[in-house]
């Protein structure tokens, strides 16, 4: 038997005064206290002493003999039946898997959203990683991402340029390096454009395209912003050599964005300016009959 680090194990020797219980979840805990043998339950019938003996022999071979726990008495069928009767007296379903089908407690449902292995990373981090990826090399992109976050963490706190304000609600600049994911999110969301210019071919007359502003949703906005950042990064020379240089450049550009030094801000302003200018086209007579 492996050593249990469960506080409940300390209570096993205590006798429990049965008391009617209202909620099954409490009852599940009660059952846990009542059970003398943690390995025995209906689903897995592993309560013969042979199991303990073999496991102990294996543990000894590993050189880690666990602390001696009083050998759990094998539960006879009578006892089990009695226990089930007792549970029935509590108003429990004695065959309920919620009560019997676990050994260390059941996690509360719904489990945390990042506990799904397809969504284990932050959404921004996930999206940016995929944007960093080239030639399908996700592992490299992930390592780059981790290095970017480390670089953000270990560089000095940014000095905010009041002319290039960050997105409202962003934390104080001194806080940013301690939360690199937040740092990245703030940088990207701050330079993310609200609109893009959508073109309707040949509608403006003379073969020219008619331009209209079109709103972007959050994911699209982030994609545009990070695409601009990558454009800048790819043009910058790296100061050193080795595989850490690309993430360093990206991280430096992100810091430059937060400090308002980056040329990405100009791109954002440009597109916003243009968007307001071409707003006049929304009610253009040429747009009649065209679904926006």
């Amino acid at each position, binding site marked *: 038997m492996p050593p249990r680090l469960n506080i409940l194990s300390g209570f096993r020797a205590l006798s429990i005064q049965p008391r009617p219980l209202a909620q099954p979840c409490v009852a599940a805990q009660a059952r846990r206290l009542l059970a003398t043998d943690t390995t025995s339950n209906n689903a897995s019938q*592993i309560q013969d002493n*042979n199991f303990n003996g073999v496991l102990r022999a294996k543990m000894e071979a590993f050189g880690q003999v666990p602390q001696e726990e009083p050998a759990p008495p094998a539960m006879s069928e009578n006892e089990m039946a009695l226990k089930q009767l007792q549970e029935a007296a509590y108003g429990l379903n004695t065959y309920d*898997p919620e009560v019997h089908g676990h050994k260390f407690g059941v996690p509360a*449902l719904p*489990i945390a959203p990042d506990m*799904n*292995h397809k969504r284990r990373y932050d959404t921004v981090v996930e999206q940016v990683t995929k944007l960093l990826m080239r030639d399908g090399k996700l592992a490299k992109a992930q390592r780059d991402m981790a290095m970017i976050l480390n670089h953000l963490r270990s560089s000095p706190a940014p000095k905010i340029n009041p002319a290039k304000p960050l997105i409202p609600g962003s934390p104080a600049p001194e806080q940013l390096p301690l939360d690199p994911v937040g740092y990245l999110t703030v940088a990207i969301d701050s330079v993310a454009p609200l609109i893009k210019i959508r073109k309707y071919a040949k509608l403006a007359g003379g073969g020219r395209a008619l331009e209209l502003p079109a709103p972007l949703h959050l994911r699209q906005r982030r994609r545009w912003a990070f695409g601009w950042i990558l454009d800048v990064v790819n043009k910058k020379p790296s100061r050193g050599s080795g595989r850490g240089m690309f993430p360093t450049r990206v991280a430096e550009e992100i810091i430059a964005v937060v400090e308002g030094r980056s040329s990405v801000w100009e791109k954002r302003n440009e597109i916003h300016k243009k968007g307001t200018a071409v707003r006049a086209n929304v009610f253009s007579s040429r747009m009649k009959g065209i679904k926006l």
Partner: protein
Amino acid sequence: MASSSRQAVTAAFRGACRSSRGQWQPLNQQFQALRIQDSVPGATRCISTEIEQPTDYNSIRAAAEIDLTPGASAVERLANARPVPVSPSYFTRMPKFNDRFLALERLARTYGNLPRIPNSHVQHVAWQTLEDMKLSLGERIKSTEFARCLALVKKLHTIHPKLKPRAVKEALQPFKKEVQPFKVEKKEVGVDKYGRAHAAGKRKSSVALAWLVEGTGEVLINSKTLPEYFGRVHDRESALWALHSTDRLGKYNVWARVSGGGTTGQAEALTLAIAKALMVHEPALKPALRRAGCVTRDPRKVERKKAGHVKARKSPTWVKR
């Protein structure tokens, strides 16, 4: 003497009665449709399509034994004897099939109103195909009639199993294939006497077998430790995700074998294998594991390359002129 003469008679009619005295043997094969009827005065020829015999072929019996007692002249009696088909279907193109069909129709008329169960609940049965039926009966069965027959079979099959009469069950039996692929019994899963739970998982082209035992959190994959086997941390997390999402890391030891595919496939095959093995230990974790994305087999595979394409979908470069 008597028996030899009897044999001679039956041989003359190419009958198949091989019985000993006092015992009625079921007649089989193609001659069973014939029976020998005594030309008793007053006996009528059976001309109705309704045969009074039960549909059960086992109960089709040969006609009464020809009385060869010395009182009557054997030759005389024999001269009056003549073969009569057991079933009027004898004169059709596919007598055996027709008999079965008719029997089914009769059953449907009798039991058609019994309560049925929805199709989704009906036990899967592999029915004989037209070819199978043709081969087994040796008759040239028409596909339309076979289809009608099979529809009837399926209708009778949906009768609630608790109410299904024995006659129906027996009538449906010959329509089933001999080998029933749907009848694979689920293996009994459980923890073995050493406390191990075993499960398999697949992803892409990888296969993982995992054994899970309560322990201190050690992991061996193809006899290597986890960091030795998976260089990428993401893959290590994937492999142990079932334990991670239920806070079981450090409570179980994993011993696993993986083969085929690349690192991602192997890691995620392990996810599934370990999750399944964990559910053997603790069935109550299934809802949590499902939400953690560990229970479902990811069915995506590499799409096969097609003829006339460079890859699965990529066409060769092509210019019209």
